[in-house]
C-alpha cells in the first residue's frame, strides 16, 4: 500500500487503492458515528430516540433543551443531578488515592534493580484484566466483612484499585525515558531525596502523572458494576443512574447525559494529547 497513488498505477491498483481508502473511511465512520449521533438527538423536542421530521427540516421547533432541563431537575426529579454530584465526589477521591500511591510505586519500579519486578507489575496491572463482575463480587464479600460495603469509603477504595493499572502504565512509560543521572546530579549538588523528587523528577514526569490521573478519573467516572454491588443508595453515581435507566424504561434524559459525558471525554482526550505532545517535545522526540 502506498500513501499516494503513483501516476503509472494500473487500473487494478487504482481500484485497490480506493477500495482500501473507502473501507478505512467506513471504519472511521463506524467508530465515530454512534458517539456523535447522540449529540443532535439530545436536542430533540420530543421524547423520541430518532430524528423527527421537524429535526430533519432543521425547523427550530423540532429542537429544544428539554432533556437538559430534565437533567437539571426541571421536572422535579433531582436524581440525575444527585448522581452527577456523587460521581464528582467519588472520582476525584479515587483518583487522588491511585495517583499518589501509583506514582510512588512507579518510581520504585523504575529503579535499576527491583527484585520481582515482573511479578509486581503483573499484580498491579491485574485489576484491569480481571473481569469487573468478579472483582466486584469479591469486593462485596470482603467489604461486607469489614463493614465497608455500602459506604463511600468502600466505593472510593474499589475505584482507586481499578485506576491503579492506568497510573502504573502511564507513569512507568514516562519514567522509562527519564534520565536517572539528573537525580544523581541533584544529589551531587546537595539536594536530599525529597527535594530531588519535587524539584527535579516530578516536574519532568508530571505530564505522565496527569495522563495517568485522567485515566484513573475516567475509569472511576465510568464505572458501574462495582457501584452496583459495593455501593448503596447513597453512592448512586451517574453511570449507575444511566445503567438502571437503560435497563428499565429508557428516558430521553439519557441522551442529554450522554452528550455531557461525550463533551467531558473530548476535553479529557484533548488534555491528554496536549500533555503527550508537550512531553515528547521536552524529550526532543517530536519536532512539533
Amino acid at each position, binding site marked *: 500500500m502506498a500513501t499516494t497513488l503513483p501516476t503509472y498505477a494500473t487500473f487494478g491498483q487504482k481500484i485497490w487503492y480506493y477500495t482500501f481508502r473507502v473501507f478505512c473511511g467506513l471504519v472511521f465512520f463506524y467508530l465515530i458515528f454512534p458517539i456523535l449521533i447522540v449529540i443532535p438527538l439530545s436536542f430533540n423536542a420530543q421524547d423520541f430516540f430518532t430524528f423527527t421530521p421537524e429535526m430533519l427540516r432543521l425547523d427550530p421547533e423540532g429542537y429544544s433543551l428539554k432533556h437538559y432541563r430534565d437533567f437539571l431537575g426541571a421536572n422535579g426529579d433531582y436524581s440525575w443531578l444527585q448522581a452527577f454530584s456523587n460521581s464528582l465526589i467519588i472520582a476525584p477521591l479515587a483518583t487522588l488515592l491511585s495517583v499518589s500511591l501509583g506514582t510512588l510505586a512507579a518510581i520504585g519500579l523504575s529503579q535499576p534493580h527491583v527484585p520481582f519486578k515482573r511479578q509486581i507489575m503483573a499484580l498491579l496491572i*491485574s485489576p484491569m484484566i480481571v473481569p469487573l463482575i468478579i472483582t466486584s463480587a469479591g469486593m462485596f*464479600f470482603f467489604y461486607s466483612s469489614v463493614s465497608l460495603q455500602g459506604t463511600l469509603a468502600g466505593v472510593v477504595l474499589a475505584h482507586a484499585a481499578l485506576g491503579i493499572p492506568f497510573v502504573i502504565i502511564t507513569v512507568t512509560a514516562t519514567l522509562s525515558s527519564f534520565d536517572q543521572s539528573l537525580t544523581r546530579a541533584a544529589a551531587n549538588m546537595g539536594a536530599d531525596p525529597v527535594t530531588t523528587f519535587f524539584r527535579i523528577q516530578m516536574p519532568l514526569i508530571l505530564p505522565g502523572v496527569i495522563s495517568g490521573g485522567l485515566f484513573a478519573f475516567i475509569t472511576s467516572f465510568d464505572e458501574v458494576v462495582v457501584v452496583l454491588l459495593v455501593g448503596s443508595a447513597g453512592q448512586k453515581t451517574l453511570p449507575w443512574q444511566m445503567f438502571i435507566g437503560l435497563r428499565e424504561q429508557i428516558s430521553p434524559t439519557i441522551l442529554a447525559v450522554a452528550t455531557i459525558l*461525550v463533551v467531558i471525554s473530548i476535553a479529557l482526550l484533548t488534555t491528554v494529547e496536549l500533555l503527550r505532545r508537550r512531553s515528547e517535545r521536552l524529550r526532543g522526540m517530536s519536532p512539533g
Partner: protein
Amino acid sequence: MADTSTNGPMMAADGTPLKQSLARALRRQKRRALLLTAPLLLFVLVSFIMPIGSMLMRSIQNTAGTDYIPDIIPNVVVALEDWDPQSGDLPSEAAFKAMAIDFKAAFKNKQHTQLGRRFNYETPGMSSLFRKSGRAISRLKIEEITDFKAEMLDVDKDWGKIEYWATIKANSGYYTGSYYMAAFDAERTIEGVQMKDPDQRIYQKLMIRTLWLSALITFCTLVIGYPVAWLLADLPLRTSNLLMILVLLPFWTSLLVRTSAWKILLQEQGVINDIWIALGFTERLSLINNQLGVVIAMTHILLPFMILPLYSVMKTIPPSYLRAAKSLGATNTTAFLRVYFPQTTPGIGAGALLVFILAVGYFITPELVGGADGTFISNRIYFQFSTLGNWGLAAALGTIMLVIVLLLYYVYDKLVGIDNVKLG
C-alpha cells in the same frame, strides 16, 4: 607500591572492601525500590487481592446465611455419619431425633428457611419443606416423643424422601464442592454425582457462548482494525495524528454512552431502522436484544484495543521492506503475505489477546443489548448474585472464569510482556 589490588581487595573510600561496599549499595537500592512500592502493594492487597480471595473462599464454604451448616445442625451431622444413602433405607431413628432437635434450634434462630434455601440449590423442593415444617416442628415436645420418624413424617411426608437426606448428608462438612458441581452442570443423585441432561447444561452452554462470541468479536476487530492501523502507520504523522483522534475518542468515551448510543441506534424505532425503511425496505430489522447487537456494539467498543497495539507494531516496520520485496519481483499479494504480514504478528497477538480477555469478562453491553440469547457468563453471575442470591454458585462461576482469564493473562505476559501495554 601504590597499587593496593596486588596485595589485597580493592578498598572503597571508607575502608571497606569495594565488593562489599557495592553489594551494600545494591541492597540499599533494592530496599528503597521495594519501600516505594510497598504502600501500593499493601493497598492492592487489601482493596483487590483479599476481595478476590474472599470470593474464592465463598465458592467452597458450606454456609447458610452467615453460619456454617455443620454449626447449625451439629446433631444431624453426627447421626448421619453411619448412614449410607445407597442402601435404599431411610436414616435411623436417631437421625430423625437429631433433626427435630436441630431444626427447633434453627427455627428459634430464624435460620430454618436459609437452611432450606441452601439445600434447595441442590435438590429442589427442600426450601418449601423446611419453610412449611417450621412451625409444626417447633411445636414438637422432644422429651415426650417416642417415635421421631413417625412424628416427622406426620409433619410432612417429604421427610421420608431419601434424596433429601442424601443432600443433607452430602453437605454436612464445613467446605463443599457442590457449588462447583452446579457450575459444571453436574447434579447429585442417589447414585452419586452425574452430569445433567445435555439440554439442561446451562452453564456449559453459556461458557461456550461467551467464548465463541468473544472469539467472533476479536476476529471482527482484527478484520476491520488491521487495515485502519495500516493506514494510520502509513500516512504522514500530521494526518495520522488527526485520524488517530477518531480512534481515541471512542476509547475515552464512557462505555455506557457507547452502549446507550448503540441501544438507541439499533432499536426497532431507531435511526438505523428509519434509514433502512427510507431506503425502501418494508420490514424493520431486529438488530438489538440478540447476538448480532452484542457483536456490533462490542466490536465497536473494543476496536481501539485492537488498533492501538497493531499501530504501534506497524509503525516500527520500515516501508522500504515492502518496496524492496516488490522490486525483487513480488506481487502485491506476495509482498504482503510474505514480508509485511509476518512482521505484524506480534501486534495481532497483542491486540487479539487483549480484546479477547476484555470481551470474555464483559457485563454491561451484553446486559443492555444482549437480550435473552446474547448474554455472557458475567450476566449469569450477576443474576445468581443479585436476583437468586446464590452467592456460592456465583463465586464458583466467577472462580472458573477467573482461572480462564488468568491463563490468558499469563499467555499475554509471555508473548507481549505486561510492561508493553500501551494506552493511547
